[in-house]
């Protein structure tokens, strides 16, 4: 918990409530902000994250769209270029494939291609995360695709506090920002101050200090890492948990400093483990802290399989407190 948070925290909100509050505040502040997506108005989104917004802001600012992800993403790009501040809702992160051309060839590049003359300040909110028994087409964590693309920013909040502060910054940002919410975290509670605040994009947060091993984790894996850290404490291992909070821009400095301090690093992310986010984070660490490391950086991501439906299968595909703690013990023992 940051200083600010500690000083002012008076309420507990769920992650869903924190997101809704960020949207409502920004929509009150700036009449150009509007939301578009499927079943988001009266239905308030299937995950109910947006309940109440259409009542306050009306159907002109909370728009139910057809099931046309490519089309309404394209419309958002054009609206952003011409003075609006669209927030797009892509119901499941698995559907971003439909939007890749609009996001990557249009939104991400228009500023550069026009020599800085146009810009596309939009936010895409979408989900990631497995273990909801939703099977292969509704459980993916595909954020690595966007991280790869210059011109985009990628945000991965892990707490209600961060979610609210980062989303407000994302909406105010002059660039296209993709904001990933773990669908299993919407009910996670945490302190969120009454007072307005924002969190700058590009600043990592040390969620827990420690000295023996650094666990760099993203989104819901931060909670997993914190749970693992508690388990490790029982084994006498002091784990530091670092949350980059935004994958681009990436606060390399904080990550590398922690790696240098502990000399052992695990990176945990819920995306597929191959050619994913863990590879970049591990590379950044080894580039910046190679000579301080006692062991290679350990990567933990989703198993390289489509996410299965059956619970006993799905449960083994993602990192858990137990597997992360085991890996940390092995890493510490192995030095």
């Amino acid at each position: 918990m940051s200083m600010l948070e500690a000083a002012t925290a008076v309420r507990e909100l769920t992650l869903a409530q924190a997101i809704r509050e960020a949207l409502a505040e920004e929509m009150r502040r700036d009449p150009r902000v509007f939301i578009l997506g499927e079943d988001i108005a009266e239905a308030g989104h299937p995950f109910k994250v947006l309940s109440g917004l259409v009542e306050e802001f009306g159907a002109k600012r909370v728009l139910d769209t057809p099931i046309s992800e490519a089309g309404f993403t394209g419309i958002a790009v054009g609206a952003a270029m011409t003075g609006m501040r669209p927030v797009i809702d892509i119901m499941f992160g698995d559907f971003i494939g439909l939007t890749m051309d609009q996001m990557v060839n249009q939104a991400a590049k228009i500023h550069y291609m026009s020599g800085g003359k146009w810009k596309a300040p939009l936010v895409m909110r979408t989900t990631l995360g497995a273990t909801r028994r939703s099977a292969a087409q509704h459980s993916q964590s595909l954020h690595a695709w966007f991280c790869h693309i210059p011109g985009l920013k990628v945000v991965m909040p892990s707490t209600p506090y961060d979610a609210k502060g980062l989303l407000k910054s994302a909406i105010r940002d002059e660039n296209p920002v993709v904001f990933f919410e773990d669908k299993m975290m919407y009910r996670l509670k945490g302190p969120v101050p009454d007072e307005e605040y924002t969190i700058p994009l590009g600043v990592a947060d040390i969620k827990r200090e420690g000295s023996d091993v650094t666990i760099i984790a993203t989104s819901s894996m931060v909670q997993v890492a914190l749970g693992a850290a508690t388990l490790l404490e029982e084994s006498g291992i002091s784990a530091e948990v670092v949350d980059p909070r935004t994958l681009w821009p990436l606060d390399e400095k904080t990550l590398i400093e922690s790696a240098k301090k502990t000399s052992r690093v695990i990176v945990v992310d819920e995306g597929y483990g191959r050619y994913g986010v863990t590879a970049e984070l591990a590379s950044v660490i080894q580039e910046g802290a190679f000579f301080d490391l006692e062991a290679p950086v350990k990567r933990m991501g989703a198993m390289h399989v489509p996410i299965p439906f059956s619970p006993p299968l799905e449960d083994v595909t993602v990192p858990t407190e137990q597997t992360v703690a085991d890996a940390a013990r092995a890493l510490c023992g192995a030095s």
Partner: protein
Amino acid sequence: MTTAVNPSKPDSRTGADLYLHMYRRMLMIRLFEEQVNDLYTRALMPGLAHLYIGEEAVAVGVCEALRTDDYITSTHRGHGHCLAKGASVDLMFAELLGKEVGYCKGKGGSMHIADPATGNLGANAIVGGSTGIATGAAFSAQRLGTGQVAVCFFGEGALGQGVLYEVMNMAALWKLPVVYVCENNMYNEYTHFSETTAGDILARGPAFGVPSEAVDGQDVRAVYDVAKKLVERARAGDGPSLLLVNTYRYHGHHVGDVSREYYRSKQEEQQWKTERDPIRIMGDWLVSQGLADRAALDKLHGEVKAEIDHGVQFALAAPYPSPDKVDQDVYA
């Protein structure tokens, strides 16, 4: 594997046989889905379930017009299509519960039932996601000269996906034997289709060279008749068509969607259930035509119920896959 489907001669059922068969299939879907609802409510089923109750005449009317080796693609609301195309109740339930003996070894679940033996290319959890697959299956049928036809089931929500128009255009250019079946149950999840659909749905086919027809989706005989015509048209080499079927789902978008009044009235639901129920309409017609009496229909109900109950027991008793199966079947 891709040749697991054995071509069979066109269905030879006619007259009373055919009609009773269609009635039975609709009943089976209805009872299957009621059981799913029950399993889900009792927390015995993981994940989501999108019930087909109210729409039974669509799947049954269309699939009765198909050969066993004809292809279908289905949707997130797929149980009805799978059963209508001949899926086993036991293996369906087993898959829904994530069991190893299920259609997909538990890897797919409710939204991914697939079965080469009945020409089922798969339910699909991406809206519009199977439009290309069905069109491609029609392509194979044409190229390989098998005489097969592909039926692409999709909800009216998929009219929002541009890929549908891309593949309809190609199906028309190449005269592919595919029938696009749009199940208009009036809602994209929680949003009325009129809020998401401009212009004229029926005109969307011809604009891309695909002739279109509309039919009352609560009347299984009407659905069957028009489907038969369009399927035979495709089989004869005369190309694709679009069938718009007007229907209604009685339950929520998925089992968890219980408080629905913010997007549709109880009265509307009640009206469809009492006035437009496809099973009642067909039952009444069978009786009025002297093709069955109430006792025969009741007996049928008992038989179907027993089959469903057996399936549930089978599935509940079946073991889960062992975790070490998780990384099998990633690559062929």
